[in-house]
């Protein structure tokens, strides 16, 4: 009787032991991992017409006044322009400054005009004007003669080819080339090279999408950008086109970062409006 009880209890114990061993996770401690707390994000952009903090306002005003003093003391022509744009950005703070400033501002503008007229004279020396006249008279004669038109076209081609090589000599042929085809190769290259350096391509863009953003620029004569316009603006807010917005913003940043743009020194009329086609496909696929 006793023996069978012992055997039975030993067997039971063995069975319990085997079961415990074969259930691999029975003996383990519960996992000690912090629970994932759900987080709800709230848009606060509408509420963010934040006024300046009193402390910040004082500091900013002080800084502005300092800048203003510096400007009125030195008054170099270019800096006057810059401060003008600054007053536009922070209109509310500069009311005082604007009332003080006009005395100092008009003076440099006069000097600007003087400088501009001088440089114009330098850029268009009288000799060149004579050349231009001569060439155009010669062309007038040739144009009337219809039989020689074919020759003339060939000649024009040769001349433009020469013009590409010679960058400094402005001739009537080159001028004609500029009018018909926009920028010369070297001018275009200079502009491209400048913007290549400024444009940080967002690397997270998808490869298989249309990654072309066309931006129209209105330029000032010094190459600074007066206005930018995204030509496919409607696409910015379409669902599934989030990457397009990112690309367009990167292109706008590039333009702002690059200004003043390296535009040709003459012929403002032809390049005052410029369209830049930012195309990321080549970079991202290659």
């Amino acid at each position, binding site marked *: 009787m006793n023996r069978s009880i012992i055997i039975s209890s030993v067997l039971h114990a063995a069975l319990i032991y085997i079961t415990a061993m074969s259930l691999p996770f029975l003996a*383990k401690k519960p996992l000690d991992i912090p629970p994932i707390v759900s987080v709800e994000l709230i*848009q*606060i952009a509408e509420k*963010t017409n*934040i006024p300046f903090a009193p402390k910040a306002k004082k500091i900013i005003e002080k800084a502005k006044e300092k800048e203003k003093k510096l400007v009125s003391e030195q008054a170099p022509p270019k800096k006057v322009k810059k401060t003008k744009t600054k007053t536009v950005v922070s209109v509310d703070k500069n009311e005082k400054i604007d009332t003080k400033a006009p005395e100092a501002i008009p003076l440099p503008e006069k000097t600007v005009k003087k400088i501009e007229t001088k440089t114009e004279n330098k850029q268009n020396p009288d000799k060149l004007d004579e050349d231009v006249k001569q060439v155009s008279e010669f062309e007038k004669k040739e144009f009337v003669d219809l039989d020689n038109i074919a020759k003339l076209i060939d000649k024009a081609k040769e001349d433009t080819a020469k013009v590409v090589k010679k960058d400094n000599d402005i001739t009537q042929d080159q001028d004609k080339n500029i009018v018909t085809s926009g*920028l010369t190769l070297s001018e275009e290259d200079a502009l491209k090279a400048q913007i290549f350096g400024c444009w940080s391509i967002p690397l997270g863009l998808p490869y298989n999408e249309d990654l072309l953003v066309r931006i129209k620029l209105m330029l000032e004569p010094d190459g600074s950008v007066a206005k930018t316009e995204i030509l496919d603006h409607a696409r910015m807010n379409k669902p599934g086109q989030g990457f397009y917005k990112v690309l367009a913003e990167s292109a706008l940043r590039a333009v702002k970062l690059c200004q003043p743009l390296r535009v040709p020194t003459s012929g403002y009329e032809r390049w005052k409006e410029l369209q830049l086609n930012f195309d990321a496909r080549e970079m991202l696929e290659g």
Partner: protein
Amino acid sequence: MKKNLFILFLIFLIPNKAFALIEVDITRGNLNPLPLAVSPLSIDDNSKKSFENILKKENIGSEISIIVENNLRTSGLFNPLNKDAFLQAPDIANLKPRFEDWNLIKAQALITGKVRYVDDKLRVEFRLWDVLAAKEMMALAFTTVPSNWRRVGHIISDKVYERLTGEKGYFDTRIIYVAEEGPKTQRKKRLAIMDQDGANNKFLTLGNELVLTPRFNPTSQMVTYLSYFKNLPRVYLLDIETGTQEVVGDFPGMTFAPRFSPDGKKIIMSFAKDGKSDIYTMDLENRLVEKITNHPSIDTSPSYSPNGKYIAFNSDRSGYQQIYIMRSDGSDVKRISFGNGIYGTPVWSPRGDLIAFTKLHKGKFYIGVMRTDGKGERLLTENYYQEAPSWSPNGRVLIFYRETKTNAKGEGFSAKLWSIDLTGYNERLVETQTDASDPSWSSLLSN
């Protein structure tokens, strides 16, 4: 008359061209990371003291900003600028940045924000500014428990990443991996989990049994992995939130490479029996097993496409191990890898556009990606031994492990986790407490 007409024609022609808008094609740019400034989050004195008591951190505002900074830097897409150069203090920058100051240090974007202690909770507000355009790009706020402060940094990073790149981030995520210790012949292998940046490391198993190939469920915090029991690999499920584990089922023969379907309702894996190996799925609700491939070759490493319609796997049916795709019912099998060498471990990108793989060619291991039709193969990294790529939830970064060669005495062996992004330029060591292998990236903890 004719002559006059011709002249008239020329007059019309020339002005038209002259006034045409000049177009310049910009086809190149720099791939330099975007310079941005992460201003420390501003914090008032009372909140500072409260957080100091709870979290033992002196200034939680700057701690969070450091997390954001590190995340953005490791992505390789951003270049957070040195804080010493900042001209504006956090409390003022938070209200309205003085863009000229940030322009001066060449920052193109700026992150500001503030942290407060409100009703035993941590409230964060943060803003992203376009410095060049001088405008606000994003403003968000949220409240959470103070102990969640690291995740606050990750969530801010994700939102900034999303706003600046146009795709979701991957910072508020975890990585599960096999932690390895001991000599190569007697490795102790434990399942471990950590935040994507290596913080909050935890071991999930004791190391009594060998564990292999943990894989995250793409829809929840559930993990499937293999563990050897009585010399037979079994497939386990582990719920990370509750800590419960279960054996999925006993299968005849050897099971390998279990992985979830995109909806998380099935597990796909391969069983080896009688010298051949086929791919099976198991429905987790009713535990029904379905055979997908039936071929006398070795078919293994299955991975679903994100829409669940296709499966990528590797097979030696052509003589060498290559990558194939098929419909999810096993029909329409197509080989997609045709390069030199042996291809393995195909993993479909969560974005659906690429398949990552391991390739062995002339004694070197490569991690690479190819499009789903097999074209456009790009090898991202080459090394002595590396494998098991796993995608970040946004399909931009791969994490994998790399082993080093042992010397003649059998010393110097190590296994470490590495990450590389799709450009192939941004390769980084992911710090772990022990040696590590077989990483798997979770989905975003917050969406």
